[in-house]
């Protein structure tokens, strides 16, 4: 386990939920149905996970300094409404659970101007040691930040679309 990180960490944002990440639907993300393709919702959400990790102190430097990486283990997306090329996106992120190596996140994607919910993403992200490419406990300062964030997120209501099991729900 890393006791410290060799770079300055950004000021920690502890808003509940987090709501700093913004993005735009790129032309290359649109498919033959004329809307953002399913895969690029995952890319857009992965960037929101990246923003979460930067807030924890695990940005590009973490990888470039060959300290560690974060890998997604599992992800669940609900596609609630279409997004067209150029649509502005606003994300919220809630920390649902954490342990010594993993976080369980819930992102919501909104159309930033029209305000509607476009999609949700529930995901598990794990800390990885750079050299062994295997799971490892969070660096100490990151674990401390996660605890600080958890204090503001633990009492948020659980999102209705979290914990879904897929099925046709036949009547």
């Amino acid at each position, binding site marked *: 386990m890393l006791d410290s990180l060799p770079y300055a960490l950004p000021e920690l944002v502890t808003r509940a939920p987090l709501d700093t990440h913004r993005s735009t639907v790129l032309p290359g993300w649109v498919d*033959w*149905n004329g809307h953002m*393709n*399913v*895969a*690029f919702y*995952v*890319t857009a959400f*992965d960037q929101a996970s990246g923003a979460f990790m930067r807030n924890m102190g695990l940005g*590009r430097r973490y*990888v470039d300094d060959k300290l560690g*990486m974060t*890998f*997604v*283990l*599992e*992800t*669940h*997306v*609900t*596609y609630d409404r279409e997004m067209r090329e150029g649509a502005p996106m606003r994300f919220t992120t809630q920390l649902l*659970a*954490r*342990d010594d190596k*993993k976080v*369980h996140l819930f992102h919501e994607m909104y159309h930033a101007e029209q305000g509607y919910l476009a999609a949700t993403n*529930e*995901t*598990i992200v794990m800390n990885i040691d750079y050299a062994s*490419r295997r799971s490892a406990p969070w660096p100490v300062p990151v674990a401390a930040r996660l605890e600080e964030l958890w204090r503001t997120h633990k009492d948020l209501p659980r999102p209705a679309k*979290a*914990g*879904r*099991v*897929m*099925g*046709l729900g*036949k009547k």
Partner: protein
Amino acid sequence: MKLPPYPMIELDLAAPFDQHRGTVLPEWIDWNGHMNVGYYVVAFDKATDTLCNQFGCSWDYTREKIGMTFVLEAHVTYDREVKEGDPLRITSQILDLDAKRLHYIHCMYHGTEGYLAATNELMLMNIDYETRRAAPWPEWAMDRLDKLAAAHEILPVPAQAGRLIGIKRK
């Protein structure tokens, strides 16, 4: 039975459906040196096109302005890394269907080493081209979907299907 205004390919009732092949492209690699999470879904979405082509609801279906298929929900398990240039083999298994929807799972394997790299469980809905809303599968598709579903019924449900995401408490 109503047929589409384009030829349909021969129906393949192998269980699971095992025609789709792909390759990890250079632009699918991220700064961790492996295929990025989003591009696993790009690869899986191409396997969905191959599957939809089996029942006449792929590119021709949209080009002829008849309909489209929209994904309602997706669950991905990332089981092992794949690197640039790796060959991919993706199998597809139908789990359930109704008049408008299809529930299925893809399994992605490394094409030569054989290991499971990822799975993708999906709920797909048929969409009317004009209204852009849910609509029953066309007759030709329903007929083939029933045959595919019957052929796949003998398969065990993969452990990765029907998963609930969470961190296990020790």
